[in-house]
């Protein structure tokens, strides 16, 4: 099954910016209204988790806008769907991790530290799927 490359790329960008934006907003509320002094820890945890992929997506979008190379191009949907669902799963995990903290016995910074390993695993899968998706497109071009 084929899918429009431009539409796929736009959907992935929307998913990533929405997910990262929602988590960003949640953390902003926690650091602004909270009195636990966890601000630096939260941002240290969040920024490395999203900035590499967001930079990649923005870079590709800007490149495509300049080159207009992908207009009307279609690609196999499997890699797109894999990248999309892994991204959604990853961003969902990123969003709920700090929000689940009240249900644990540990302090928020400890929860964030503990979440780093499983999140890195999912992040690696999502990033690999995104990369594979772009490689697929390039091979076809």
């Amino acid at each position: 099954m084929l899918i429009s490359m431009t539409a796929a790329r736009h959907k992935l960008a929307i998913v990533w910016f929405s997910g990262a934006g929602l988590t960003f907003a949640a953390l902003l509320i926690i650091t602004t209204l909270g009195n636990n002094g966890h601000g630096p820890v939260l941002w240290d945890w969040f920024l490395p988790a999203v900035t590499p992929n967001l930079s990649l997506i923005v870079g590709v979008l800007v490149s495509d806008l300049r080159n207009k190379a992908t207009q009307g191009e279609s690609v196999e949907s499997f890699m797109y769907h894999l990248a999309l669902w892994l991204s959604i799963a990853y961003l969902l995990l990123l969003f709920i991790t700090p929000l689940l903290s009240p249900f644990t016995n540990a302090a928020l910074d400890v929860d964030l530290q503990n979440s780093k390993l499983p999140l890195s695993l999912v992040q690696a899968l999502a990033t690999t799927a995104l990369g594979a998706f772009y490689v697929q497109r390039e091979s076809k071009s």
Partner: protein
Amino acid sequence: MIFSGCSMVSAAKKWNRQYLFLFTLLAISFFPTIARSADGVAVGFAKKAVGTLVVVRADGIEERLSGKGRMPLFEGDVVRTDDNSVALLELNSDIQVGLNRSTSFKIVSRWEKANGITRILRLKEGMLWVKTSGGVKQLEVETPVAIAVVKGTEFIIEALKDGTSNLKVIEGLVEFGTAFGTCPIRTSTVSHAEQGKKCTKPVVADVTPAANWTAALLDTKASKNGGGTIAMAAPAPPAPALPIFWPPPDASTHQKIPRALLVPDNTHAQTWANVAARMEKALAKNGYSSPGYYSVPEGFALISQLERINPDATPTPPNERWKIKVDPASIVPFNLGAYLKALLGKDAGYFRVIAFVFTPVSIVTSGAEANIEEAKLWVGQGGTKLPRILSKQLYGEDMVATALIYEFEIPSHGEAARLNKPSEHNGQQHLKAAKILQALGG
């Protein structure tokens, strides 16, 4: 025959020479004793040793005493006990000197035109108990870092292995000095001296237990019960004196407590025990129990247990007031409010310890920041009450009661505690919130 007669004369001469030699040898052997006896300068006597007392004379000859006796002591003698021995000496009939275990000192003297002979005990190591009677004595005890000049008293002086010295005055007055100055140490006070420093300010303490080991020497009831063996003579474990809370660590805030609240009836002399009892009663009325007693210079301190307080300095409800831990905010029953409270870290905890210090000495804190982990233990490590000797002390006009308030904050569950310095509330607000001033009648 002539030959044999000659040989007899020769044999007789030989015998005479042998006797002469033996006599000379004996005379030489006894010479020091004879000479000493002729001098008549015995400075005292060793009267009793439980175990063995060793006296090393100036000429290197060692003499020993076990049990009771009357061994003369001379200037220049080194007197020592081993790990299992204690001994009693008497100098000039009215100075008693006890040697605890592993103690060694040398007897020397100083002559001054104005004062005559001053006997000096040069303590190398160990512990001496000294008791004088009949007025001021010309006696000094030197340690490697300090000197104690006796003014008619009973005291214990100790030369520790780390080179420092302690002086505990049981009764009377002793001038304790180092190269950096002297301090008069009075009854029931303790001072410490170390190299390169002035002796410390005297701290009131129950010093009598320190002399427990002398019971075996002084034929007191305790020693009579025993059989005079070393095992029986072993010093009884001393009753612990109050630990010292001085200088106190930095506090969040402090507040003087008006004297009228502690001594409402000024017509009668009040003792430290009266004031402590009044303070304890006021604390008990507000839920505090078992304060810890500490010693401070010329006074005492009473420390309340660590309690959890509300942000407005009032105590939290009893079910969580004495809980030292900050639990995460409860999300049971679950609702949005509880959840947000837990998420946003509204589970901070405030804690407080109040140290009531009663002393005429100005309080200068140590500069060290108080630690909640140490503060937790203050009550447990303190005495449960004032020792008898301190409780009888008069609460003088110059005594000042100061409440040092230590406020700690644990910002969130799992976070480290920090001292709030300064506190958002002043000392009076803290004492009022704890209703302590009210309970005292303020």
